[in-house]
């Protein structure tokens, strides 16, 4: 936006700031992620113990039946069914943990300095999976993800844009509400809308929301940099556009436009510190 952003030092600083902000956001998400992982781990540990004990009991039953040349007891068959159903629970639990780990991995790439072709819907699904763990019970996601071409972008940075916008949307909703995430292709651009049913942004605050250091959140909860970094990533780094509609008491929708291709003059292999 400003001529200064052409300076490599400033751009490096912006990237570092963006990374620091991303780590802070992830830190705040971690409580929800821990909860999301603790239930399946608890289940697997418990199931493992139950399966081992059941097998020991089963062995005794079968040995007794063999010694007395009697029929296999009905209880033994029930036990086999119970072991099978616990193994199925283990499978689901492992899938749940892997899904969370996969979505975390996409965020953990700190300095993704290369432009890559990316499925934006996939990035959004990952972000919803992570934030869903934090908002669980309070917020429902409504998704309308259109068919999109792959987008040339810095995936780590775009992830951060989506994380910031969705976390903000969740924080704008005081109790229960909905976050709608919509995507569609618009010529040489993809459009992403993130709408919440939250408190809306008061008119006096609207001109300030993209300014560095401005925050309405209590001390320690917001850095006042989230939307500043979001705008820099969308507009300065990717040549896109970000705007919003808001109504107090009704909610806010952020509109993000990202070009499918970055200009060819862009160096594809920026060095990262």
């Amino acid at each position, binding site marked *: 936006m400003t001529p200064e952003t052409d300076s490599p030092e400033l751009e490096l600083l912006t990237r570092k700031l963006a990374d620091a902000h991303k780590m802070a956001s992830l830190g705040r998400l971690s409580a929800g992620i821990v909860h999301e992982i603790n239930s399946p781990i608890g289940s697997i540990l418990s199931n493992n113990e139950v399966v081992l004990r059941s097998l020991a009991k089963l062995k005794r039953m079968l040995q007794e039946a063999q010694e007395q040349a009697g029929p296999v007891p009905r209880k033994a068959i029930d036990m086999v069914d119970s072991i099978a159903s616990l193994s199925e629970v283990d499978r689901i639990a492992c899938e749940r943990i892997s899904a969370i780990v996969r979505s975390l991995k996409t965020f953990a790439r700190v300095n993704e300095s290369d432009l890559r072709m990316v499925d934006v819907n996939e990035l959004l699904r990952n972000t919803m999976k992570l934030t869903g763990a934090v908002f669980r*019970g309070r917020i429902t996601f409504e998704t309308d993800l259109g068919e999109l071409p792959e987008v040339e972008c810095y995936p780590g940075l775009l992830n951060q844009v989506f994380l910031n916008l969705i976390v903000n949307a969740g924080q704008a909703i005081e109790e229960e509400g909905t976050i709608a995430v919509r995507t569609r292709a618009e010529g040489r651009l993809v459009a992403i809308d993130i709408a919440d049913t939250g408190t809306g942004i008061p008119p006096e605050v609207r001109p300030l929301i993209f300014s560095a250091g401005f925050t309405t959140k209590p001390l320690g909860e917001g850095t006042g940099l989230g939307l500043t970094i979001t705008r820099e990533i969308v507009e300065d780094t990717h040549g896109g556009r970000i705007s919003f509609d808001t109504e107090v008491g009704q909610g806010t929708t952020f509109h993000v436009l990202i070009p499918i291709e970055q200009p060819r003059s862009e160096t594809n292999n920026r060095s990262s510190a």
Partner: protein
Amino acid sequence: MTNGQPHVLLVDDEDMVITSIRAFLQLETEYEIHGYTNPQEAMRHLEMSPVDVVVSDYLMPKMNGIQLLAKAKEYQPEAARVLLTGHADKQSAIQAINKVGLYQYLEKPWDNSQLLLVINSAIERTQLLRNLREKVGELDEAHTNLKDVQTRLLRAFL
């Protein structure tokens, strides 16, 4: 008063947690297990049928574990209340202890033998409380009868 075996109410929005704990308790005990993934349905159960212990998750849609246990306290004050949570923050623990008179606060991933120990002692406590209430009722009744006899005696002699 519950009849026969003790009744355990399990509430967790994760079906897998209920399946695992149910399988464990069925293997180790003869307890009647009632599992709900929807806290509002669990609340209706509490309204209708007596239980000995309620084991509830904290983070659930529509109603959190503390809200559910507060209802449990209202409907069945003697039933012991246990919070089993993956959301380990001090604030929710303090709130749970102060607001709903929690019997135990357990964290996920849980340890089966610890869970069984807690459930067993919770059931014992609930049954002792119920016995105590019954005995107090009997004492009250005996006291009323005695007073009655005393009044009749006084009337007979005066």
